[in-house]
């Protein structure tokens, strides 16, 4: 019963994902259609399933909040609304996709090179890492079933308000809740409240199940996405690398919103990369817009993620204008898809909770940190930020099992694929990562409080927002094991060896 909300969320998200990401990868002739030793296209199915939960849960969280605002207090009504929107979306796109899919028809030939024969071993290593993190997460949750501070002071606490319905949900955004954060986006808490309402009781199993679901979705998005963009061997390798930082265990076990934030951002980025690899497929850009707009409803940092994804989609569409006369269509698809949730968020932030919003005020902040100009010129703030980044990097893994050590080993032993570093997908991933890091840096510099104090408590969990994209960047630029394979000449028969020897002798004498 506790898993019912998860299953319903997956079902709600599956239809739009399948409609907007229909074998998109086959448009890219370099992407393999097979996923390791498994037949068919399980990578695509895995990606669908992994994207479905974040999409479905976000849609349900938002629909639940919208209906509560309208005075409709029923979890099934919220689910019905999401299913109706998803179904309509799917039906509309199914009608149009016939001609388009003909253009994207895959080649019938096999992959360029046979898969790495040790993929099964890499799959075992990936499974080991996933199991270890899940077991460790379960161990922490057994001792701390309500999660950590931000869970019971913000996210799950507001979920309890939403679960009570009947006007109690307004406590989540009430100015009297100012000791916490009434101005924070409500989507995640709304989904938790909806889930509790659905199962009929407030228990610790529901938020824990949601945490597991987001973690598994993130693993699936990164692994399956790399499998579609590159090779299965790299996909299997990416999973243990993704899970190396200790925060990939502690943040999910803390039941913080940073994991859903990282998952939604990775989902948006991966779908955009698949779209860019598929000549800026309009449907991929539309799905990216939906995911990006949901980012803003998870955490405040989502605004930065939405802006960066929009800028990258626009930039790469603009760069492709020579060969794509209708270059604006993917950008328009992104904008139209992102608009509803983004505009709803703008209303929430500037109209619904304006007093509680950090954007609304400013007097207090300048009093503590000086003017914006002073903060930018204050070099000690940069030193504090660098110090905190160094401390965070020093503590997210052991010396020999440090996340950066994993990335270095992969890059050193596989090498960099120079041709791949010029591919639009790789350049787009780099641009996203660079812009996101730059955006975070600017926001740290402009913080009203001393950045050292704030980052000491938050930098570890913020790492979850961009770490998946860093893993994707590295695995987009490495060579694959298959790239390094050397063909061995077939063993010759005795007669053929004699003939070859005679030929070599004639060659030495200069005979033609």
């Amino acid at each position, binding site marked *: 019963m506790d898993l019912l909300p998860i299953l319903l969320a997956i079902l709600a998200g599956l239809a739009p994902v399948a409609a907007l990401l229909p074998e998109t990868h086959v448009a890219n002739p370099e992407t393999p259609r097979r996923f390791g030793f498994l037949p068919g296209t399980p990578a695509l199915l895995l990606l669908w399933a992994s994207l479905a939960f974040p999409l479905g849960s976000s849609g349900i969280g938002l629909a639940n909040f919208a209906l509560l605002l309208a005075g409709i207090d029923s979890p099934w009504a919220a689910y019905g609304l999401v299913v109706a929107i998803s179904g309509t979306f799917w039906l509309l796109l199914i009608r149009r996709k016939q001609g388009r899919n003909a253009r994207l028809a895959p080649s019938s030939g096999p992959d360029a090179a046979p898969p790495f024969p040790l993929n099964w071993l890499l799959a075992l290593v990936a499974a080991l890492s996933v199991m270890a993190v899940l077991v460790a997460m379960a161990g922490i949750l057994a001792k701390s079933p309500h999660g950590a501070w931000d869970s*019971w002071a913000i996210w799950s606490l507001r979920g309890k308000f939403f679960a009570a319905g009947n006007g109690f949900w307004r406590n989540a955004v009430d100015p009297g809740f100012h000791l916490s954060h009434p101005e924070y986006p409500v989507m995640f808490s709304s989904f938790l409240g909806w889930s509790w309402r659905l199962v009929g009781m407030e228990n610790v199993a529901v938020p824990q199940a949601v945490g597991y679901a987001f973690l598994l979705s993130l693993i699936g998005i990164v692994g399956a996405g790399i499998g579609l963009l590159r090779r299965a061997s790299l996909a299997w390798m990416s999973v243990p690398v993704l899970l190396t930082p200790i925060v990939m*265990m502690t943040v999910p076990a803390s039941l913080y919103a940073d994991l859903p934030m990282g998952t939604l951002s990775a989902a948006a980025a991966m779908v955009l990369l698949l779209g860019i690899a598929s000549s800026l497929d309009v449907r991929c850009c539309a799905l990216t817009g939906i995911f990006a707009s949901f980012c803003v409803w998870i955490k405040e940092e989502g605004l930065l993620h939405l802006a960066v994804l929009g800028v990258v989609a626009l930039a790469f569409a603009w760069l492709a204008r020579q060969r794509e006369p209708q270059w604006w269509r993917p950008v328009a698809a992104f904008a139209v898809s992102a608009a509803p949730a983004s505009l709803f968020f703008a209303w929430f932030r500037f109209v619904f909770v304006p007093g509680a919003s950090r954007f609304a005020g400013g007097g207090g902040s300048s009093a503590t940190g000086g003017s914006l100009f002073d903060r930018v010129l204050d070099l000690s703030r940069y030193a504090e930020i660098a110090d905190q980044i160094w401390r965070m990097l020093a503590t997210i893994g052991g010396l020999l099992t440090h996340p950066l050590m994993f990335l270095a080993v*992969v890059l050193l032993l596989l090498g960099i694929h120079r041709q791949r570093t010029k591919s639009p997908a790789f350049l787009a991933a780099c641009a996203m990562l660079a812009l996101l890091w730059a955006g975070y840096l600017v926001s740290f510099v402009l913080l009203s409080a001393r950045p050292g104090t704030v980052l000491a408590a938050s930098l570890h969990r913020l790492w979850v927002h961009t770490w998946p994209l860093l893993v994707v960047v590295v695995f987009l630029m490495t060579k694959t094991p298959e790239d390094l394979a050397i063909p061995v000449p077939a063993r010759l028969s005795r007669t053929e060896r004699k003939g070859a020897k005679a030929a070599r002798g004639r060659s030495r004498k200069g005979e033609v």
Partner: protein
Amino acid sequence: MAELRYPARVYLLVALLGAMTLGYSLSRIAEAKEYQDAYPFRAQFARLAGVKPLIAGERQVGYLCDQDPRRQAYARLYFPTQYVIAPTLLVPLEDAPSAKIVLGNFTRQEDYAAIGRKHGLEPVKEFPMGVVLYRRMAAPAPGNPVPALPQPQ
């Protein structure tokens, strides 16, 4: 199709990935075993079990505490209490001076009735471990009746 041979560094990578993954997997499980919950909730649920049914129907109640709101200790006491009491919102008395029902949350054994009187409150019921439920005292104005004792739901 020609037979393929892979360079030694590919096998080295597979071996290193396996060994390093095994290393951090074991350390994650060990770290989880050593994990200590800094805010055990079991005590809070037991402490507030009596008061919760009495205020279950109230959307908001006032909150009175003997800690300085500017100190971390205040938040450390407020949030676990708020989490257990939710969906009722605890609004600090400074923000809700006219709250009819107030939850007192104290860390020291004191004269809780005297503390309440300073804020125009009278105790409804005292619970163990510093939890007190107050209501606003009868006001002299006729239009401001004494709130009825909340009934368990």
